[in-house]
């Protein structure tokens, strides 16, 4: 193709360029430019100096990172909460969708479904407030029930128990997202042909057997796609929940890599050190993504990459 014909094509498609180039610039600035900031991790970054005047220090920041006990603590917390969240968000919504599908009263089914979306739309600030309230040792409903059933003698200070923190975050996550995560499974179940159930019923299969042999195989590929996608999102486990639900008493178990970067990088002005943490975080997540995808490819012959 000659230069002229390329130019002609561009002119012919000019409106498509007008409509996309401004946004491409936006995406470049806000999503790709920060990647350039990764160079900071290899410098002794000083605010106010130009890029060329910075002092380059090689891997010194990473060496410092790997000598810090706090770092390994944060890494352990991040991995633990990521995997617990992944397992919970993968199993429980499927269970919920399958059970909800068995509800025959359509009013009840729709009502419960609508209700189950509610927490997804509420901010983590509100959810953290609600969780703190429900688990409170004074008048918290969870403690009241546990004491009422004589399972415990006196209220437990849930929010102050270090060893419960991972479970606390995972439970809050389940409460918030189960209904939302079930949407796609419910749609997939609705797509299974009713004649399959009809045939099974004629053969005398119990409801449980129908779930096992028809419903679950029917949504198998949906499950696999969503699982791989959620592994891809391990990269963004976030720190909102840990920030909002944590307190100084549970810090050992609540500090994730992002919070560690926030406290030690931004809070203390150690930008290079903080960026090294961010980079390590991204690299670990990418490795997880590739490993998970590789395993699934072997098992299922399906892949997202």
């Amino acid at each position, binding site marked *: 193709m000659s230069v002229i014909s390329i130019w002609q094509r561009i002119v012919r*498609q000019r409106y*498509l360029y007008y409509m996309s180039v401004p946004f491409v610039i936006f995406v470049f600035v806000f999503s790709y430019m920060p990647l350039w900031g990764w160079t900071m991790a290899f410098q002794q970054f000083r605010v106010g100096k130009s890029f060329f005047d910075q002092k380059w220090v090689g891997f010194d920041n990473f060496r410092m990172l790997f000598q810090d006990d706090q770092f390994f603590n944060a890494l352990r917390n991040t991995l633990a909460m990521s995997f617990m969240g992944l397992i919970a968000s993968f199993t429980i919504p499927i269970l919920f969708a399958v059970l909800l599908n068995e509800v025959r009263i359509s009013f009840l089914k729709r009502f419960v479904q609508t209700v189950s979306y509610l927490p997804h*739309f509420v901010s983590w600030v509100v959810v953290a407030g*609600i969780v703190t309230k429900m688990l409170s040792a004074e008048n918290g409903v969870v403690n009241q029930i546990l004491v009422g059933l004589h399972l415990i003698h006196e209220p437990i200070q849930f929010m102050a128990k270090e060893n419960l923190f991972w479970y606390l975050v995972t439970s809050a996550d389940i409460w918030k997202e189960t*209904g939302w995560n079930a949407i796609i499974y419910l749609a997939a179940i609705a797509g299974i042909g009713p004649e399959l159930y009809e045939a099974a019923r004629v053969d005398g299969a119990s409801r449980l057997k129908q779930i096992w042999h028809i419903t679950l195989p029917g949504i198998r590929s949906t499950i696999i796609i969503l699982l791989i996608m959620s592994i891809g999102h391990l990269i963004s486990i976030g720190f909102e929940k840990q920030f909002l639900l944590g307190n100084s008493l549970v810090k050992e178990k609540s500090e994730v890599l992002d919070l560690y970067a926030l406290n030690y990088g931004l809070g203390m002005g150690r930008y290079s050190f903080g*960026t090294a943490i*961010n980079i390590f975080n991204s690299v670990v997540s990418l490795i997880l993504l590739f490993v998970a995808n590789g395993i699934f490819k072997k098992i299922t012959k399906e892949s997202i990459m």
Partner: protein
Amino acid sequence: MKVRISLTDRLFDVIVYLVISLVAVCTLYPFLNVLAISLNDSTDTVRGGITVFPRHLTFDNYSLIFSFAGLLTGLKISVLRTLAGTVLGLISSSMLAYVLSRAEFDGRKFLSLFLALTMYVSGGLIPFYLLMRDMHLIGTFWVYVLPGLVSAFNVFIIRSFIDGLPYALQESAKLDGANDFTIYWRVILPLLLPALATVALFLAVGQWNSWFDTYLYNGSKEHLTTLQFELMKVLQSTQVGSSGQEVNGTNMNQVMNRISPESVKMAITIIVTVPILLVYPFLQRYFVTGMTLGAVKS
């Protein structure tokens, strides 16, 4: 044999209804409890025992929080950022989605990959913070709106919806001599309403619920505070108080002076939650199909 099967099935039914009801109760009870406490007299609340009905019905907590200056500013900024973020986000994602749907567009492959990568790669908190500072966005309103203007996920949701529309519509408009912008504006956009409703909900909820950007960029700027940030401050200020040490009778007054009473906190929680509650059930039909389409295509 027949009888045994229907027996296990009946047992199964009982379990299903029990579990489903339990889920509904666990989801709804906290909200009803918060609502009841927010409507209860704040000194009476301290006695505890409020479940889903207020014991001493009063609207004092609400009138009290609306006398806080921070809350009114927060309300204003939250509404503004929700409006700006939603409108700008809708324009950007629908335009990009339209461009991506044009098979003849040369930049299509590049654009698609360029957007998709942003869903998996991120520079991280600190480089982003420094970028915001270098662009002088810190301490401004626009730091709430501009960084999230283009969301790849929303673009792909709308795009898969456009792909489902009959292509002949666009072709006939093109033959009539309409340019791409006119086709987008006059032909496609009106048909996109269900997809736009979904994306608008996502954008609006995301904007309304944000608090961390306020904390990070504008934490000391009182005129740019948001409702979620104000709520966060109120709730966090008593975190250790409510979890670390017991509040007992002798220092109750002291505690009451230092922290915001329970009922007032719950009233702010309700104010923050109610707008979402009013909107999402009506958009349910749209976001269910939107989510399903988006997941299947991407």
